[in-house]
């Protein structure tokens, strides 16, 4: 939803500050990182979450995606430190006897997978379209940017719902968990590309008129290749910022889709799905089913957002 915000600033910055990122990386970035305790903690938490997700299968008491490992007998056990807690269910279990901690670890994996792949896909689409629009200009540029305009006025969640719905209706009922994941990645990827495209296009427009492009063309080097070498480093900073913020947004979008019933199925729950399921048990006093996934999601997104904030400020020396 912040798509309208970032381009305003990044486009300008990309144009105004070629190579700023590279310079910044040398010293300032690392310095400002070390200076901010909050950022260091956020980075630590984010890293921790990624590690937890990667090693989920090693760390978990059970594989919550494998129904054979779920014991209905063990359902609705409260966390270990409460009176009714039972080992090994540190954070308790849910209605199905799913260990909440394991479910969080595996859910984290799904959420991050959807988020990261979604962001990578949207980045790839956005960069490609941005390069195309900027390089060719004219009608191609007009068309791509008009599409971007239109898309920008539609919130990502609605676009994702639409794509989700289209995919569901096209593939009918054949969608299993993995294809649902692919659909989510696709939906998120197609909803978030605009900012990248605008940033890259802005940078291309700046570079296009520079002498070296003409020079390269004179000596017979393909201009696109040359430009790519200049454009991409210049936009790395803004793109990194967009990607970080979008990662958080993508994860929330997935959670929201799942609240509206279009997210990951309950047999392979993401953090968002876990919250939706757990939400139904809040009044029943089985708070741990929703509280821990909620906390995990909030902590993850908070950390990523903090990193994104810091990155944006750090790459923009004016704000320091």
């Amino acid at each position: 939803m912040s798509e309208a915000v970032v381009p305003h600033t990044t486009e300008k910055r990309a144009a105004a500050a070629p190579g700023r990122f590279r310079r910044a990386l040398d010293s300032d970035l690392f310095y400002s990182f070390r200076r901010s305790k909050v950022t260091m903690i956020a980075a630590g938490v984010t890293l921790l979450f990624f590690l937890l997700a990667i090693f989920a299968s090693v760390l978990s008491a059970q594989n919550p995606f494998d129904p054979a490992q779920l014991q209905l007998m063990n359902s609705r056990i409260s966390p270990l430190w409460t009176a009714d807690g039972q080992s090994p269910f540190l954070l308790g279990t849910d209605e199905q006897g799913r260990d909440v901690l394991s479910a969080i670890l595996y859910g984290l994996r799904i959420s991050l997978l959807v988020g990261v792949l979604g962001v990578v896909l949207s980045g790839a689409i956005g960069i490609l379209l941005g390069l195309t629009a900027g390089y060719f200009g004219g009608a191609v540029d007009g068309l791509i940017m008009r599409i971007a305009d239109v898309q920008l006025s539609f919130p990502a969640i609605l676009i994702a719902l639409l794509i989700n719905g289209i995919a569901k209706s096209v593939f009918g009922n054949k969608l299993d968990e993995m294809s649902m994941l692919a659909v989510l990645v696709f939906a998120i990827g197609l909803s978030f590309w605009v900012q990248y495209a605008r940033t890259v296009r802005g940078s291309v427009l700046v570079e296009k008129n520079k002498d070296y492009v003409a020079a390269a063309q004179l000596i017979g080097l393909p201009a696109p290749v040359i430009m790519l070498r200049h454009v991409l480093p210049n936009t790395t900073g803004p793109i990194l910022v967009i990607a970080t913020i979008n990662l958080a947004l993508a994860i929330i979008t997935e959670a929201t889709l799942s609240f509206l019933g279009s997210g990951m199925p309950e047999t392979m729950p993401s953090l968002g799905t876990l919250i939706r399921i757990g939400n139904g048990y809040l009044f029943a006093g089985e708070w741990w089913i929703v509280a821990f996934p909620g906390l995990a999601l909030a902590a993850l997104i908070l950390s990523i957002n903090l990193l994104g904030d810091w990155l944006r400020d750090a790459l923009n020396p004016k704000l320091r």
Partner: protein
Amino acid sequence: MSVGRSLFAATLAGVLALAVSPASSQTLRYANQGELKSLDPYTLNESTTSAHLGHVYEGLVARGKDLKIIPALAESWETPEPTRWRFHLRKGVKFHNGDPFTADDVVFSAERVRAKGSNFQSRIPADAKVVKIDDYTVDFILTSPNPILTALWATWYIMDKKWAEANDAVAPTPAAATTPSYASLHENGTGPFIIESHQPGVKTVFKVNPNWWRKPEHNLKEIIFTPIANPATRVAALLSGEVDVIEPVPVQDIERVKASPNATALTGPELRTIFVGMDQARDELLYSNVKGKNPFKDVRVREAVYRAIDVDLIKNRVMRGLSTPSALMVAPEIFPSKDFARPKFDPDAAKKLLADAGYADGFEVTMDCPNDRYVNDAAICQAIVGMLARINIKVDLLAQPKAQYFAKVLKPGGYKTSLFMLGWTPDTLDSQNVLHDIMGCRDDPKDPNRGEANLAGYCNKQFDELADKVLVESDSSKRDLLIKQAFELSMKDWAYIPLHQQALAWGVSKKVKLTQRADNMVMLYWATKQEE
């Protein structure tokens, strides 16, 4: 003297009523997850809609608090011959617009309910004749005996002929109507309440009908109905005292509601039976890794699946004790019998049965399941998936919203399922409906409607013969015996796996006294609310 005294008493009562009723008549706020979908009582055969309309419309008969058929617009009836039913109509009843209720309205309603576009055509056999004898007597002449003719009539609501004719509403509003008819936006019944305003999906206000022929058991002046689809919001509205009655309460919230100082939960067994079915019609399953044959055609595999499912565990854990495990495909209220016991949960026997059938290593199959239709439906399916995994049947669960689910598994979708869960309430409140619709052979050339909802494709000609005999048998003990034989036969075939009757759970404010009926129809004309 006696006349004087009674006159005095009546006057006193009248004065008292005048003095008391304005203060004691209350507004009841009611929230349901479902919606009142049309005001035309013949448009949609759906229980929530029928229950709502039951406050403004009435049938010739009604169902009492114990679901027994009781007289309503018909004071009494008799069957002079097995194929002739005579109904004596109540006199002095008026529709909400003041029109008197007469035999003409019954004849008219009988035609309208069977007309094209009605969703209730089966309420009266198509070839039955409805004859007005006098203004308050009507005969129904059938071509074959039907002992349960009135079973579904509690939701066959009588409409006003004059009103319908005056408002161009003689034809029923079809479910697929592209323009709303007058009758779908307005009501004119004889019932205890009058709809004052109706904003679909938002709010419907029922005002009390001061001229109702029956003495009200409620003390309400109006009912404000709001559909609240989100379960948490619905519960919150009850807990915070914003509504007085909600239906349903999610099972996990029942304890919370009971613990609340201003509300409680009414629970009881529902008539709906939840069951699992296996496709035993196709030669190869649509969704399985077993090719060239159908494992569910093997009775040992069906028994294995049956024995692998621990319904008691589902009851304790998923349903929180609020279900009644069932051996039969109908609820005990419909067919009470002590002769049936559920075959024991026995995973080891199940494994052995599978091995005997040649599936020692199990197989893979996809299970279809709704996730917004029955109480904890998806959770039950997930639990079953886990249980079947322990006998090496790897189940891929496809839990979907009811719209997509029904589109796929029902007859119009081509019964596209290999393993599924479904719930069924015979709306006749009679076993025959289940024997015919769910367990009868599909594709019976003589009876195309047989096996309409038989998603498993179970087919046993002997069973169908029994079902046919049940339909025409008027002697109830002989009839029960036939039903029993049919159920025994189906159990021997391991045709279906009945799981349980789910519990119905209504949330009710402590200020409100309410009768809960097992068909889950919320009838607020039995509700009383304390003064505020």
